[in-house]
């Protein structure tokens, strides 16, 4: 059987560490490995990692519940990470950041939500991760009368199905297209008991049992360094 994409393995590592932490009573990060945002945020959400200045480089931000604070918080974070120059330029970077965060506010009814973006200079890519502890995508669809199995629910959301009508749903689907085709990068969506992984080579869905399932939603993007994305407006149309 073919291996799993590195981005999904990074998420699965967080699950493995959580299981080990429960057994041993402490969280031990592998010292020889780079730790990616898609590993860090689930550990933060589960309470196994707390804010440690400088430990992981730029720290994550907690999205405020008060909508009035979020624009400034996101913009401060965007400015502080200075990642737009390797993430297609400010318009492209802000598009990915804001469209995915907007989905969190529109649908998840979260108690806690976080964003972490980090560049990996030797590997020449940036990873962005977004995690909320709110309603999973399957539950959001069920709430609006769409009863799909978990994997199908993720695929529907990724293809632009929205509970808010046919003119909606472009945020996630265009973001996936932008990552996959514009950057030739990797996209991962984990929500409840399912995950969806997409890049140019393959698209896979995973049915997740037990400790691999997530009570919430994780969106993770791994995008190769790129100063500008040609055809940006075509990808998001």
């Amino acid at each position: 059987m073919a291996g799993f994409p590195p981005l999904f393995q990074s998420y699965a590592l967080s699950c493995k560490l959580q299981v080990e932490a429960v057994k041993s009573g402490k969280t031990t990060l592998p010292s020889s490995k780079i730790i990616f945002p898609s590993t860090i945020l689930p550990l933060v959400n589960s309470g196994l990692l707390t804010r440690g200045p400088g430990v992981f480089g730029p720290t994550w931000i907690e999205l405020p519940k008060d909508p009035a604070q979020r624009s400034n918080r996101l913009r401060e974070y965007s400015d502080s990470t200075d990642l737009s120059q390797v993430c297609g330029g400010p318009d492209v970077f802000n598009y990915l950041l804001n469209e995915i965060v907007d989905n969190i506010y529109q649908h998840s009814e979260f108690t806690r939500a976080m964003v972490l973006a980090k560049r990996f200079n030797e590997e020449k890519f940036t990873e962005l991760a977004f995690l909320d502890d709110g309603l999973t995508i399957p539950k959001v669809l069920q709430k609006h009368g769409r009863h799909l199995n978990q994997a199908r629910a993720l695929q529907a959301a990724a293809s632009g199905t929205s509970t808010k009508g046919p003119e909606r749903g472009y945020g996630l689907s265009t973001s996936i297209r932008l990552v996959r085709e514009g950057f030739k990068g990797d996209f991962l969506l984990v929500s409840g008991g399912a995950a969806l992984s997409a890049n140019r080579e393959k698209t896979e869905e995973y049915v997740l049992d037990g400790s691999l399932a997530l009570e919430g939603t994780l969106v993770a993007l791994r995008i190769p360094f790129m100063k500008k994305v040609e055809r940006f407006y075509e990808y998001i149309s």
Partner: protein
Amino acid sequence: MKVLITQKVSDNLAFRDSAEAFFHEIETLPDQSITIDFSGVKFISRSFAHEYLARKKQSSKTLKETHVPESVRKMFHVVLHPSKKFELPKPTVRRIDRIDAVFT
């Protein structure tokens, strides 16, 4: 009457419900004809642009835009001329019942 959108919302027009709130305020203004000044806008998301245009269509006011940056014009064009929604290729489905299987 002229309204500077960066003053009412932000120079970062990111969130759909910000557009909704903006139009709630527009509807309360006494003037029937209002110019929305986009001077200083640095970014607009597709979601905000979509909500803005939808609300503008429903508005009781006569609205026009001025000093619209090129990035905003392009985003309005994208929203007004949407393509068929992008669909991923049909995925392979795999069931994973233990964590270690992911790393072998």
